[in-house]
């Protein structure tokens, strides 16, 4: 695919923009064309937070697009707000352990993941967004794991150096996210 359009949406504070930044940084370092717009409101926390990301082989024209190839919804309100970005070619991912409903959209594939539950039970609530990053990496299939690890090092390297076990925790989260997509049986 020449251009991958990603919508990543959740509640303010869920770490949506941090994940988007790592993803596009990885794309940039891998020599791709990338464009990222954070959707920002006046609130510091709370409210739906949306990141619009594009990763392409050629120069990107439009900064905002109508429909995403991958649309990730991490809360009920994100489902409501982001149905408009879905069409029959979209892969939709939602978190079954946060959302109380399933997105009712016509799309190519829909994948339910329980990232929040897994983060809380097996890892740490703080790496919820890194699980989602793993989901994104597997679902988009345009970047390599090493690209993401390098970008994580850039964003979180100082924290990793202070507490090396954090690096392993984040890598585990990343891999769990990737497995969630492969276990879903959906071809991406």
């Amino acid at each position: 695919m020449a251009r991958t359009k990603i919508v990543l949406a959740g509640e303010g504070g869920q770490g949506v923009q941090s994940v988007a930044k790592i993803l596009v940084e990885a794309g940039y370092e891998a020599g791709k064309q990338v464009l990222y717009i954070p959707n920002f409101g006046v609130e510091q926390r709370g409210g739906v937070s949306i990141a619009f990301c594009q990763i392409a082989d050629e120069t990107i024209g439009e900064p905002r697009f109508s429909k995403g190839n991958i649309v990730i919804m991490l809360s009920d309100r994100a489902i409501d707000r982001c149905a408009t970005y879905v069409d029959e070619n979209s892969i939709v991912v939602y978190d079954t352990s946060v959302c109380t409903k399933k997105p009712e959209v016509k799309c190519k594939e829909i994948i339910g993941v329980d990232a929040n539950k897994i983060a809380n039970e097996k890892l740490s609530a703080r790496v919820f967004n890194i699980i989602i990053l793993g989901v994104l990496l597997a679902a988009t299939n345009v970047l390599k794991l090493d690209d993401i690890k390098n970008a994580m090092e850039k964003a979180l390297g100082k924290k990793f150096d202070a507490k090396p076990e954090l690096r392993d925790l984040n890598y585990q989260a990343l891999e769990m996210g990737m497995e969630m997509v492969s276990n879903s049986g959906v071809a991406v």
Partner: protein
Amino acid sequence: MVNKLIKEDTKMFLTGNEVLAYAANSAEAEFMYGYPITPQNEIMHTWCKLLPKTEAGFLQTEDEISAGFSTIGGILAGKRAFTATAGPGNVIMQDAQSMAEMMRIPFVCAVMQRGGPSTATVIYAQQETRLTCFGGNGEGFRIVYSTAGHQDLYDYMIKAFNTAWKYRFPTYILADGYQGKMREPVTLYDPASRGITMVPTERFLLADGEIGVDRKSAHLRNTYNMEDELMEVLEGYKADYEKMSEEVQEWEEYKAEDAEILVIAHGIVARSARTAIDELREKGIKAGLFRPITIRPLAVKPLREAVQRAKRILFTESANGQLAQMVLEKLYGLTTPYDTLFKMGVGVTGDDIVNKVESMALAVNRG
């Protein structure tokens, strides 16, 4: 003099606001005055973060009225100063911007448009187009570059300083919240490496030399006693403005040569139009783009020529036709029919334009 940070071509992955701060440094700007308003804050933040290395100056004023007048003050004191604002800040800075127009001050301002009217949204719009071109109680003797992404922001911010200092009209970078906040790759460079010579900064007041011997007196007036005295001065400005217009006007055409449907758009919307045009061409629809880069002054001759070649025009903006209004005035006498796609304070996507042009193409084919 300040220390310039970019000495060789440097590819970076930045937000547009960061790009503007680097560009001002590359343009040898010495001082920024500003007041915080989203979505332009990071221009100030980045400028300040770089201060230990650049040894430039910054003053956060109490509001945008003060930021505008302080910028004029800095320039009068002989500094290459600039400011940046958005939305309601742009509104209240108009008083100072009018003064800069009246006194022919090389005032440089980056406007990162947000939704309006009033506080509206902090996100994005093209609703300060008219304000930036014609705000204040004057005649719009201003130069406005409308940018469409990060390379533009860098290139035209550097150019804005040269245009302002050469022609002595207030000069603007008109961008928006998307461009300010979005992140994309950009190549920063030293202007000299592109053959660009920066117009030197001159002292307006208290310059060297003896008045009447080495130089003329600096007599900057903002107040006139007689009506005809004012008009005489403004007629001079108007003549200067018209003479300069041919030299500064810039535009971009994309597949416009044989276009049956011509999209007229500026800024970031023009970028969506390019995406749409590629898609439309694949579907066999002859669409093209005319993008004014200087939206004030407009490049009237090429604009009229492109419109005359087309069968139908589409104006599209993230505003209710602010550019269209300026353009239509310049198209007086032409009868090419036009349609509109206006989304007030909302981004226009490639799909929006594709759908609209497809419906227009049906009308064109029906004759």
